């Protein structure tokens, strides 16, 4: 029972970080910067959860982000689900901390790119300097991915330990 709902409990354990990212976005609102962390939150669950659980977790995270932003429905959720399917199929990439950091940066940046393009597609007007803003937003996403991965992964691992999710095999 618990294992089946592990992804949902993990979402609840991750939610304070998402809320923190929203508060940080609130602080940077006058600079038009969004602190995007959803991609970085996928890394630890991709190592330990079963694939279907990780997919549900990623979709939930994506829809949480989309719920309050005018981006096309499913754009972020699908990007996160695609990322988590890839990661759970290649768990050897997440074997050590540098690998996890690299994955956090790449996934966070790619997911950020997806929402940015989705928002651009849905926006009623064109941006003034879209490439400059895009690069700035992606840089912020990469930086946030590096900074936030370890504390988020610690929280998620602690939650998964309590939920009885089996640890990552040494040789995946």
């Amino acid at each position, binding site marked *: 029972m618990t294992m089946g709902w592990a992804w949902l409990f993990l979402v609840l354990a991750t939610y304070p970080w998402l809320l923190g990212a*929203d*508060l940080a*976005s*609130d602080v940077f*609102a*006058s*600079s*038009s*910067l*969004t602190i995007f962390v959803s991609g970085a939150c996928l890394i630890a669950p991709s190592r330990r959860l079963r694939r279907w659980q990780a997919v549900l977790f990623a979709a939930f995270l994506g829809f949480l982000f989309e719920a*309050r*932003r*005018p981006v096309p429905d499913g754009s972020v959720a699908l990007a996160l689900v695609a990322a988590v399917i890839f990661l759970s199929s290649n768990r050897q990439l997440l074997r050590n901390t540098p690998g996890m950091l690299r994955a956090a940066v790449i996934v966070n940046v790619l997911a950020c790119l997806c929402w*940015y393009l989705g*928002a*651009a597609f*849905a*926006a*009623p*007007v*064109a*941006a*003034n*300097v*879209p490439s*400059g*803003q895009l690069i*700035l*937003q992606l840089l912020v996403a990469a930086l946030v991915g590096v900074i936030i991965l370890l504390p988020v992964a610690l929280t998620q691992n602690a939650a998964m330990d309590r939920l009885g999710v089996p640890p990552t095999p040494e040789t995946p």
Partner: protein
Amino acid sequence: MPAALRRLNREAFAEFQAPALHLLGKSRDMATFWEKKSRSTEEMAAAGRDLARINAALEIKLNAMDDVRRENIRLREITRYAVPAEYMSVVARVATRDSSSWWQRIVIRKGRNDGIRPGAPVVFGNNVVGRVTAVHLTTSEVDLVTSPGFRCTAYLEGDDQNRIALVNGVAANSLGTAKARVSVIPHDYTPPAGQSARVFTTGMGGVFPSRLLLGYLDGGTYSTQVGNFKESLLVPSRDLYNLQEVSVLVPLHQNPGEALMQGDQFQ
């Protein structure tokens, strides 16, 4: 006894007593001095610490009073605007702000349960903040004046003929201040000299009441590429990212603007 003698007598006795009174005061000062001098350094340090604590507590109390005073001013300002009879005013606190290149929104802590409906104008005093775009049970999302999804008609200060201009948000530069664009400004319009021209709502379209302040023209006007009209940028009348409360003007009866908003929550 003659008056002069009486005054002399009084003066003489006063002067006679004066040195004694001086002595009394000085001896009291000296006693205090020696009493303090006799205290140990630890005692003085403890007294200093206590004093510092009291000072800190008083400072906190002063700051709290200052906060209360600022909040009082803010609340007075928000209620200064006389809400038109066809609207119901719902005051709401701002929960979070969220912006990117493509949207500038705030989330307020009132929603469907409080009677808020999509399309309702959001103001602070008589300044336009934005428009409600999505309503949830206990929260609502508000598109700010500077958000690309925001559009409304406007009158410009100094235009005696009251010709209509168009205000719409523009996509913001990151790290830049968000502004809106005022377009369809007649070619012969000249802003008032020596001040930024104010931009008001027209009241047409049924969304915003008339004569609400949208903001100020940023600098002068410039011709568009087509050349038929001029354009300018609009600086919002309030710092939209520092708002803590706003008023939502909920129309008592559904208006055309609100009907247009239905099913179009995210533009």
